[in-house]
């Protein structure tokens, strides 16, 4: 089963490689991993999307907790939560009709065109991974030059909060 694990860890050099190294050394899956400092600059928050049986995910959380740099973590999957991912998509649109159609599709998916060049658009789109997938499928008829995906971020709904 797919799990989203959010981790608060010391914002120190090497902390990211400890987590990444743990996953490769123990053969755990990583679907995506995002990390950035939090409002407290001494802390980083990482979101890991992984998958595995309950036993494996239990081991993943235990092994993560065992890392000295990890302060706290939360398996979002156990709570109502929101997940978001952003994609930046560069599409070739040399014809006026294509520009129109891509603009229309972007609007439908609540994406925004954030760069306009002579014959290409860059579209910014946010949502759950499946929505991003659907948008890319919708763009199949066009020439997609580049796709950048941020990886998943997650936050629990309501009272539950991952903080120290």
């Amino acid at each position: 089963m797919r799990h989203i694990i959010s981790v608060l860890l010391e914002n120190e050099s090497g902390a990211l490689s400890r987590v990444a190294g743990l996953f490769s050394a123990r053969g755990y899956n990583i679907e995506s991993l995002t990390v950035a400092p939090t409002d407290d600059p001494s802390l980083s928050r990482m979101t890991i999307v992984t998958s595995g049986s309950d036993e494996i995910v239990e081991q993943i959380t235990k092994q993560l907790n065992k890392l000295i740099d990890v302060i706290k973590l939360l398996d979002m999957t156990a709570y109502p939560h929101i997940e978001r991912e952003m994609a930046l998509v560069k599409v070739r649109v040399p014809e006026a009709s294509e520009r129109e159609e891509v603009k229309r599709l972007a609007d439908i998916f609540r994406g925004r065109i954030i760069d306009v060049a002579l014959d290409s658009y860059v579209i910014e789109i946010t949502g759950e991974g499946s929505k991003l997938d659907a948008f890319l499928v919708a763009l199949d008829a066009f020439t997609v030059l580049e796709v950048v995906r941020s990886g998943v971020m997650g936050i629990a709904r309501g009272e539950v909060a991952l903080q120290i």
Partner: protein
Amino acid sequence: MSESASSATAITGAEIFCRSLEAEGVDVVFGYPGGAVLHIYDALYRQDKVSHVLVRHEQGAVHAAEGYAKSSDKPGVALVTSGPGATNAITGIADAYMDSVPLVVFTGQVPTSMIGNDAFQEVDTVGITRPCVKHNFLVKDVKDLATTIKKAFYVATTGRPGPVVVDIPKDVTADTCVFEYPDSIHMRSYNPTTKGHTGQIRKAVDLILSAKQPMIYTGGGVILGRGSEALTEFTRQLGYPITNTLMGLGGYPASDKQFLGMLGMHGTYEANMAMHHADVLIAIGARFDDRVTGNIEKFCPHAKIVHVDVDPSSISKNVKVDVPIVGEVEPVLRELIKGLNEAGSKPDAEALATWWKQIAEWQAQDCLKYDQTSGLIKPQYVVQKFWELTEGDAYVTSDVGQHQMWAAQFYGFDKPNRWINSGGLGTMGVGLPFAMGVQFAHPDATVGCITGEASIQMCIQELSTCFQYQLPLKILNLNNRYLGMVRQWQEFFYQGRYAMSYMDALPDFVKLAEAYGHVGIQITQPGDVEGAIREALAQKDRLVFMDFITDQSENVYPMIPAGAGQNEMILV
């Protein structure tokens, strides 16, 4: 200059290193100098609080530090230079990681300004060691040095112990700042659990008392957690049978009637059969290693399992358990004893009598018996004699292979911290440097190294260190001219195709020992074994290398073949 002004004088990083070690109560560092650590060596030279032992290879330094730590209640400390110094130390660090040995390893590093430039003797030590340390640090500023050393010792010795590497660039050891060593340290990201959960302990007590066919299975955690006394009390109070893992030997007195011997691949028939038929398994400080469980699908099929361990990730990793208790072994055992005393009921005496009767039948197999009629020296016999003549009270190290199993089977350890071997990583070559570390921790004790002619050659250069420091080790080389365990597997599973398991050109070990300044004896007749060991033990101030020419065809029995269940042992 006033007193307070002088105490606030800035000193170099190298001096801070020495003062920090002194503050940690470190009496000996095992190491080898090199460019990146020259400032540190100069500072060590100019003080007399912390002594330094010069090994002959950095691997030996880390293993010696391990031997020191495993046989005592203090962490081991090693110091090596950057680059090859650090890479040579890796095997020891990985060994310590697998066996949870509290160790602080200091590595020199190229100056901070040159890091990442492929400088002379540069490696990414923090990167290379990351997968095999409990934690590691790169100190980039001399102001962080003392605190980092404090953290390193704290992390290495608390919770589930393990090796910590501190990588110190050369400029940091030359830079100066005021020395202040913290009295205590708090790390928001590291708070190991000590006491067990009360509710879980209550559940465990109920389950333990409900058992009809109980089995206690304990590992190295009992020794690391100094829980032997509590374990002995707990086990005797219950009257239940007990087995120890390879790492757990000495955690419970081997001479006690409730002890069924070691379990696992080369454990006793009775221990493995009792595990297989147990209805309640009490696992303490053990990690259900594959050499213990055999085929995990067939492991303890009837048992409800209580598991006490300080490391939550050890629990339900390989085998799902019913009552997990996260906590330090000693306090949890004390709580369990208290729970037993307060419980309304007692163990089921009738069921227990039947269970012991069954166990006695398994014991009657006499699974460790071996044939002594060949006229050749049997390796088991050498170990048995060494045990007898040292009255079971020596510190014993081993290397890895057949001799290790025979040492574990035939030297009955009644006390913890006496049996020093490489269980998890299975590192050939550890025996001699382990023994050096043990002798430094216990200068007056008898320290034996049970080894084989292949393993001993992997760190043979340390015989030179032994001469420099006059370490009177007793080396028992069980020389069968084969990589014995490899040969055994080739005999059993590869139709006797002995690929590369025979050593064609062995040194004359007697001359070799003498070349290093020691005493060497070769023993070829069973009748001479006892006399040789007596003679070696009588040479109190000399290292004696006993080269026993043993039966080449001897195998380690009993054996659970890989993939088989605990009840599917090969007996002799």
